[in-house]
Structures are given as C-alpha cells and as structure tokens.
C-alpha cells in the first residue's frame, strides 16, 4: 500500500458548482435626464454671514422634512469652476476633493436652524470668513445635509462687496428635475430563490451617458417597490424613500458582489427577489455629491412574465 499525500500548492476547485453571476452592462441601465437650476446668491464677501434654513419643509428631492433634520453644514470654494460648471459637476456626481480650494464644515446646533460662518471649522482650524470668504473667481457652494450625510439642499454663492449678509434656504431653490426611463434598459434576470453574484465590470457609461469606471461605485442596493416602473419614474427623485424593502452593501473598489452580503437596515440578509412588486438594483457613490444613482437596473425573476 502506498500512501501519497501531496498537493501542488495551488487552490483546489470547489466541489460545488456555483450559479453563474448576473451580469450588469450598459444595455441594462436606465436612462436619466437630470437638471439642476439655481441662481447664485450674491453674499457679502469677507464677512461672517448667517446661514439659515428655518423655512425648509421639503428637501431638494421634494421629500417632507423638518428644519431640525439638518445635521451638517459644508461650505466649499470651487475656485476653478463657474456656477454652470458646478451644476454640471453635481448633476454628474463628478466633484472631487481636489476641486475644493478652501472648505469648512460644522454641525447644526441642537434645536436651531441657523449658524454663523465662523462657527464652521476647516482642516487647519477655525474658518474665518473675514479672511477666507474670497470673491472674484470661481463659485462657493454651501451644502446642507442630514444626519445620514445625505444632501438636503445647497446654494451657490458669489461673495461680492455689499452682498447680502444672510444665506437663507428655501424650498424652491435649487430646482431639481429628473426624468428617468427605467425601461430604457433590459431587465437583469435573477433565478428564483437565488442570491447570485452581481457583476458590473462591463459598465462603461451611466444613465446620462457619461463615462464611468466600473470599480468607482461604493454602494450596491437592491430594493423592492409596490409601484410599477411608470409610477416610480413619476416620482424618481424620491426613489429611495419609495422602497418597501431595501438591502445595501459597500462595494468600494469592486466590480462584483455576492448578493448574500446585502443587508437591510436591521441587518437581515438579502434572500433573493420575488415575483411581488418591482425590483431595482442600483449602484451609487455615497461620497459623491449627486442626486440620482448613475446605474439603475430592473431585476426580473426568471420565469416571471
């Protein structure tokens, strides 16, 4: 009897056959037309202006909110971008930290709906608007976000001599319009009872037709809706809030993910899609300033009509 017990040092194949991945490519993606409109506000340059949001009752997407829902305030000087270029960059989710010449941030005080700009701090210390709120070139962007760090509203500012001393946020400014066509792409088919791997390595453009890098997304979400595609399109700006159930996971640096890693807000794992309702998958960038996911794909159950 000879006993041999060797390996060749390489990984052994799994004894179980795995289900093929569900491939997401450009042909599956929705089409999106997104437009932001806001007139820059002329504010007093080199002055400690007041930021107030007490009149806000809806956020930029049209969702009802309270002024006390505002958690964070950020102000950025985008030195090389004029207001139209800033709006283009927000529509495309393409602003990066390197676009920001000066920035400051702060938290909304409890039970208050205003701050002074010198309440904010920068990476180097206290933000001193009397020294740093420079006009003459580029655009300042003032962003309000909620405690989940989701954008609530923003303003474009141009500091000028004699400008106003208060930056007041209103429901109707900025104006966001989104027209989404969820039927523009083919549905990605998911086998019944399966929690497949989703593979999006083949993606090259987003819903607006702008180039994307497949490993540039940082969050994958799968959600179920009781509304049909047409109804979702009508209220697309509120997409996330319309979901009956949703599961998410971080996918930063990845081009595929095992869907069993998706979790809902209670930590329960995704167990596959059903024949009930409308199912969507979307890929997004949580660290980007944008208002619509670049990738949204319908999911269809195999064998479903």
């Amino acid at each position: 009897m000879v006993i041999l017990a060797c390996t060749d040092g390489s990984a052994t194949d799994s004894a179980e056959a795995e289900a093929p991945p569900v491939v997401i490519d450009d042909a599956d993606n929705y089409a999106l037309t997104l437009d932001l409109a806001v007139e820059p506000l002329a504010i007093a340059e080199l002055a400690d202006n007041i930021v107030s949001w007490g009149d806000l009752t809806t956020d930029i997407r049209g969702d009802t909110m309270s002024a006390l829902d505002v958690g964070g305030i950020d102000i950025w000087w985008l030195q090389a971008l004029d207001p139209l270029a800033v709006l283009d960059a927000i529509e495309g989710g393409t602003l990066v930290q390197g676009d920001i010449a000066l920035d400051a941030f702060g938290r909304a005080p409890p039970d208050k709906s205003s701050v002074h700009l010198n309440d904010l701090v920068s990476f180097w210390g206290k933000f001193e608007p009397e020294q740093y709120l420079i006009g003459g070139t580029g655009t300042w962007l003032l962003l309000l976000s909620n405690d989940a760090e989701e954008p609530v509203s923003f303003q474009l500012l141009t500091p000028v001599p004699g400008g106003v001393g208060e930056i007041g946020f209103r429901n109707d400014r900025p104006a966001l319009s989104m027209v989404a066509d969820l039927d523009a792409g083919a549905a990605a088919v998911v086998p019944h009872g399966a929690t497949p791997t989703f593979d999006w390595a083949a993606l090259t453009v987003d819903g607006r037709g702008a180039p994307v890098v497949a490993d540039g997304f940082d969050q994958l979400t799968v959600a179920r809706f009781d509304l049909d595609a047409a109804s979702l399109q009508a209220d697309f700006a509120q997409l996330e809030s319309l979901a009956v159930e949703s599961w998410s996971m971080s996918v930063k640096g990845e081009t595929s993910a095992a869907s069993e890693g998706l979790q809902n807000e209670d930590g329960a794992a995704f167990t596959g899609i059903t024949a009930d309702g409308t199912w969507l998958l979307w890929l997004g960038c949580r660290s980007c300033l944008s208002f619509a996911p670049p990738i949204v794909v319908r999911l269809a159950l195999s064998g479903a009509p």
Partner: protein
Amino acid sequence: MFVLLLACTDTDSGAVATLEPTATLDSESETALTASWTTDTPADAVIEYGGDDAYGKTVTGWSSEDGLQHMVVLAGLAAGFEWHWRAVSTGAEVEVSEDQLFLPTRAPAEIPELTVSGAFDGLVLAPLLGGGTFVAMYDGEGRVSWWRKVSDEQVTLSQARLSLDGRSVLAMGDDPAQEGPEVALLSYPVAGGDATVTPLGVAHHDFIELAEGGYATIQFDIRPYEGQDVQGDALVTVDGEGAITTVWSTWDERQPGNLDQYPIVEGVGPNWTHMNSLALHEGVYWLSSYQLQCLFLVDAGTRRLVGQVGGADGNVLLNGSDGFGPQHTPIPTEDGFLLFNNRPLDAMPLWSEAVEFTLDMGKREFARRSSYDAGRSVFTAAYGNVEPLPGGGQFIAWGSAGRLTVLDGDGAATWEAATPLGSAFGFAHPIAELSGVP
C-alpha cells in the same frame, strides 16, 4: 505489507514542504499577519507572497540567534483580497511550507479608497482628515492595506510616520490621559498590540523620532508682549517617559514686532510664528514658520539659530525672484532643500507647488532649482509635503486637496491619487515596505 510515505515536494523549486508556520493576525484591523515557525537546523526566515501561488515577492524577517526560530510580519497587502504566501527557510537545505492564504479584512467604510492613475510600486502612509480619525496605509492602486483608528472623536490628525525601526506607525493624536488640548505620540505596532502613548504636552502639527530615542516636536510658546499674550512656538524634545526639554524658542532670538500683522487665535491672541513642521539634518533642526514665511535653522548642540532662510529677518537670502511664501515641511537634501509652498491667499488664482531649492550656507543664499505645480490646478490650504524618493523622483502630498503625486527623475508625474469628497490628508509619506521583522 509495507507503507511507503512520500514527503510532499514543491514541484516548482524542488524544495521540501516541511515547514509548518502558525499565523496570527493583529486584532485591531486584521491586516497584519505574523508567521512563526521553527527549523531543526539553523536557517533564515523568509516569506514569499503574491496574488497567486507563483508569489513574486519576498520579505525577510527575524531568526533567533541559534537560527531555529523564525518570525515574519506580512503587512501592507490590499485588504479584502486573497493573498498567497509560504514560509521559506534556507540553511543546509531549502525548506518551504505549503501554500497559505491570507485575506486581510476590509477597512471600515469611513476610510476612503483612492482613485489612482499611473503606477506606483510602494505604499503610502496617510493620516486622514474627514470621515473619522484614522491613519491608513494605501497601496499603489489606492486600496487600504493597513489602518488604525486614532480617535473616536473627529480630531485633527496632521502627522503619521513609520518608526525608524519600521515596526510601528507613529501618529500624533489626543492624549487619552488629558481632557485639554494636550496631545500624545501614539505608537501602533504594525503587527498588532496596544499603542504606546508618550505625552507631548501642547505639541502641534509635526514630530520626528530621534535616533537616540524620544521625539522632537513643536509646542505653542505663549508669552506676554506689549500688553497681550502672543503665540510663538518652541522646539522641544520629549523622552520616552514624556519629560520635555526645550531646545529653542522663537522668543529666544526673535521678537514679534507689530502685532497688527498677525491673525488672532481665539482665546489666545496674535498668532506670531505658526510653526508647522520640522526636520533634523546633520545636527541642525529645520523649522518651518508658515506665518513668517521662513525657515529657522537651529543647531541641536548649541541650541542657537544658525540661519533664517527667507522671511523679513532672514539672513540666508534668495538669489533670484522666486522664493517661497507660507509653506510646510522643509526636507534638507545634499545641496539644498525641498519644500511644499502653499503660497499666500492674496495671490489669485490660488495654487500650490512643490519646490526644490539649492542652499549655499557659505554664501548665505538659496535659489530655486525646480518646481512642480500640477498645472496650477491644485491649491492646498492646509498641510502639504514633498520628499525625495529613493532612486530619484519626488513624492508630493497635497494635504487638504486630497491628492498625491509621484514624479519621476525627470519631473514628470507617473502616478496620481485622489480622495473622494470630504476626505483629505495630513502629511503623507511613501513607504517602501511594511512587512519584515516583527
């Protein structure tokens, strides 16, 4: 009946697979693996590793004096990816282990990954600004490969360095034993374990580890001047127990003059010098003053100023018309120095640059040799540093602009990295290797 047992061989090298390493992970981030094994005869300690079992890279670790016990730390590998490794000991014969797998755990979502272009075969150690207080190590593809959480609070984390022995990451953070502004030097063993805390008092911005032990750093030195408190700075050394010795203060050989020219620090008074970085080269400390736009050169032995490069009272003068303004991190070189020139806020449009100067202390003059300004597309309001790379080229960290650049020996950018919105760097540094001796 007989039983023939054949020992396994690695068919690629013909070495005998007899080593049985044990592997432990650091408990803090599960990104550093310590492999330990023994040999029956004296040998060395090497790990081969790579993305597959062809490996491709090696690192040498520690062996006991008798050459029978071996330990190697494997760290700096992109987290969330599977890595292959094996132990190799060469003595009278070459012994190897079976192929092993290492999956460093993915970093928390608060630690950003970088968007990169080009190629860089090294690591970057970066204190992170925004998104939580972490110090992280990145590979050339912008992936997190090692990290530590410095604080649960959002605090300013300006500087992190690899220790001189390469076994620890040093960061300046809040002193956990104090409730006030005092900071401490936190030393995180790469292989895992509790951080060592060395109090630094009211230090700020920067520190260096001293070859003889302890650290040098900058502390606020607030003194009364013309009826009000004025914030200067002092260069101090701190020993391992936290005993602080002042080497030199700006008050020793300079006076603020007209206080109206300085910004006010809330609760203190005029911010006179705003020192922000230091270096030690051939017995001379180099101190950067952002506010005075100069470099103070202080002899470590005599504790006296041996030169002031630039600024209104400078006695090492600019030869030419292109000097520097508010700046960070002078790095002495063979015949000059590198410096990150943030440039002043009143020169529109705003842009920053990395500059190399020549320095002739005999003639008491310095001159611009070369610079890189990214096409004047980047302004760094806070921090920023540049340092030479072994074999030529430069590494530039653009601080609050959240960008990194590697230049080749001809000054061309060969690698760029960028943080997402809301994240940026303190002083970041290139690291050749994180693996090795525990």
